[in-house]
């Protein structure tokens, strides 16, 4: 993600991560910003502010990322972070159904209170704990995953359906393996409208599909739901 020096229009995008405690918000950010992963990372206190650039063919997006703590007692501070945010990553843990419920609450709150044009991505993290793991993600749908007796408790189907209903970008990721992490941020970057006005999510999302193809060739699965999501809009 190093900054190439080609003069491209550059813009800052405020992005906020929300979600239950211990779903892997900070790990996603750490993977995206430093391409690093820490086992047993200690909980975030308050919020962390990080920046990372994302190069698109036509422009450079500088993400100003607010990585918030998931604990209940910090919830009252959340508006401070999502106010004026152009993008939000709502994260849940694939192995913990209650975290999806919490994610839905955050989506509802964002839709009610955040800027109208906010781009929201729903991200199911910890794909490495499921049998489809990294690399083969998307091949196995919810039903198959459950048969194999892995740690997955939230089916891709369920979350994807919900994301489509609400008009969200949707990804399943693993911060541990790095699977799909950059793709989430690239998709968001693409989905941000040139004129930070009303979202034109459809074209943005399909653009994403093409873009990720360029970056990584062996991605087959979770991009498809994303593209479909774009069409569904």
């Amino acid at each position, binding site marked *: 993600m190093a900054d190439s020096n080609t003069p491209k229009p550059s813009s800052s995008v405020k992005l906020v991560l929300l979600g239950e405690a211990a779903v892997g918000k900070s790990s996603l950010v750490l993977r995206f*910003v430093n391409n*690093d992963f820490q086992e047993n990372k200690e909980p975030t206190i308050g919020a962390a502010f990080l920046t990372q650039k994302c190069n698109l063919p036509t422009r450079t997006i500088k993400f100003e990322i607010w*990585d918030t703590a998931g604990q209940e*007692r910090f919830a009252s501070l959340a508006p401070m972070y999502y106010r004026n945010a152009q993008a939000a990553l709502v994260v849940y843990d694939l192995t913990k159904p209650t975290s999806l419920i919490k994610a839905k609450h955050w989506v509802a709150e964002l839709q009610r209170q955040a800027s109208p044009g906010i781009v929201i991505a729903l991200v199911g993290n910890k794909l490495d704990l499921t049998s489809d793991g990294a690399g083969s993600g998307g091949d196995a749908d919810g039903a198959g995953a459950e048969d194999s007796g892995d740690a997955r408790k939230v089916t891709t189907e369920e979350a994807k359906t919900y994301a489509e209903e609400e008009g969200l970008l949707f990804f399943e990721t693993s911060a541990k393996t790095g699977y799909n992490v950059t793709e989430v941020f690239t998709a968001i970057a693409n989905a941000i409208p040139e004129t930070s006005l009303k979202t034109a999510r459809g074209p943005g999302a399909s653009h994403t599909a093409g873009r990720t193809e360029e970056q990584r060739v062996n991605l087959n699965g979770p991009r498809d739901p994303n593209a479909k999501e774009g069409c569904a809009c």
Partner: protein
Amino acid sequence: MARQAEAETNDDGASKVTSPSPSPPPPPLPPRRKPSGEGPAQVAPAQAKPTTAVSSIDISTLSFPDGSRGTFSTNAAQAVSAPAASGYVTPVGDLADSMSIMSFAPTLRPHGDLASLVAGGLNRKSRAWNMLRSQSETVQPFESIELGALGDLAGFEREFDEIPDNTADDIRLAIWKSKMKHYMILSSAGKPIYSRHGDLSLVNSYMGIIQTIISFYEGANNPLLGFTAGNARFVIAIEGPLYFVAISRLGESDAQLRSQLEALYMQILSTLTLPTLKNIFAHRPSTDLRKPLEGTESLLSSLADSFTKGSPSTLLGALECLRLRKSQRLAINNIFLKSRSEKLLYGLIVAGGKLVSVIRPRKHSLHPSDLQLIFNMLFESGSIKSGGGESWVPLCLPAFNNRGYLYMYVSFFDGRTDAAFVGEAAQQSPESSHDSTSENNSERASNNVEDEEEIAIILISPDKESFYDLKEMRDKLAAQLTKSGHLSLIRSAAREGRPKIQTVAPGAQISHFLYKSRANVQFCMSSVEPASAAQTAAAAPEPSGPEKLLTHRRLMTLYHELHASMHAKYAHLKVLHAVSEDAASLAWITPIFEFYCVAGPNVSRAAMAQGANRIIQWAKREEERLFIIGGGVF
């Protein structure tokens, strides 16, 4: 550990001690007892008496007009007759030094400083004995403890290991019981809140027992403060609806354990504030406090572990500063003040857990216990450091105001990469320094060796919306510090580490010291390293992790014992010299400072006292470098 303890005045050397006020009027002489038949050379050490048994020595105390106290042994009258015949001449280096203890007893020695006061019978031994001693003085503290015979600290290296989840319950319980230190927090309704070791399913029943015991005494309006079971000491602190229990086999005093529990309570208040805590339990006494405290277990544990490892800062209730030249500190303070944002309450620069600079409003000062919580969060637990980037943390500083939150902006400077940067090009715009942050983070995270040098800027504001103001201030400050070269100065000072005894007082036989400036509530200490390396010029191998941990704990246990003896109620001790099989130690308290030091077991009291004197003179000389006096005020 058989040890002999002697209060400074229990032998012939001295009659009394007074505070180092410039030229105090000689206080009245202590009441004289009728001289007994003991000769001055007849030293009968209180063998095998524990250090704390100061009462075994008949000590009387006298208050002086300047508010200090003197302690006198009852055989003081004989001091006069102690001649200089021993041939021992105290090298009194600096007579003008007001820090040295002066004797007001008529004595043949012209300048009775501490060294001569405690120069006891040891010096009157035969020449052969003295020569033998000179050989044995090179024995380092704890050196005699052989590997494998760890005594009280057997298994300490496994103290911080997790109890495995996947083994049988009885094995887990055995591991749990083998821990030397436990901290437990529970609600008065008996709900477990926190336990340092073991998950709650394991310790739940013990929590129940503890709750029953405490409640029994509570019910009788006779609160239980502590009790001993086997070799473990239980200390209980009750704070409103919360019970705090410390269980220790490390030999700390009740007061010391209680101050550790107090710090854990402060951590809880820092998370919740006092009104919130009260509210929670006022509405539902059976509330499970684990939920509201979720995510702070690591903070409690890192705090607890720093106590178990032995924290000089907690022991002395003081802070450690980075040693800097006065002019440099002043310049940093001024840069800090110049870049100040309107929203700022407190500003701190901290390098590796040592304070570099503070700016504060005139009417507020910072409390050490609050800073301890911040330092613990930043440097001991990984919560903030591991995240990278900048942090914005709501927290309550209970000693400042336990009723509300402040907001803390934290930014770490990068490790090595940044240092090279600064060295090459002093010019760096805030913009570029900021952009480099993200790239350098990974390097820092993977490089823990740099911990000692980590520099953090901490900006605290009462306004929760002030993040961007403070961030701007940080960028301005960082640019200025880099440009003026002060950043690299701080970094090299941090890299230098703590002062070494051999530079402070060359030739002194002391192995380690702690010096607390009471007025500044700050302390300094020497670096912990095998002094033998310096003395024998043989490159001692770098002690491995567990060994280092053990050495540190032994040292801290000794300091805890000394501290407990000095601060025992009604003791009013001024100077204490204690010798055990493994080490000799000396404590010395005046209204200005508290001084503790450790030497090898065979180092004579005279040599120790002489070394102590030199270190204290050094600390006096270096006061404005070692300590922050006032800080930048706005």
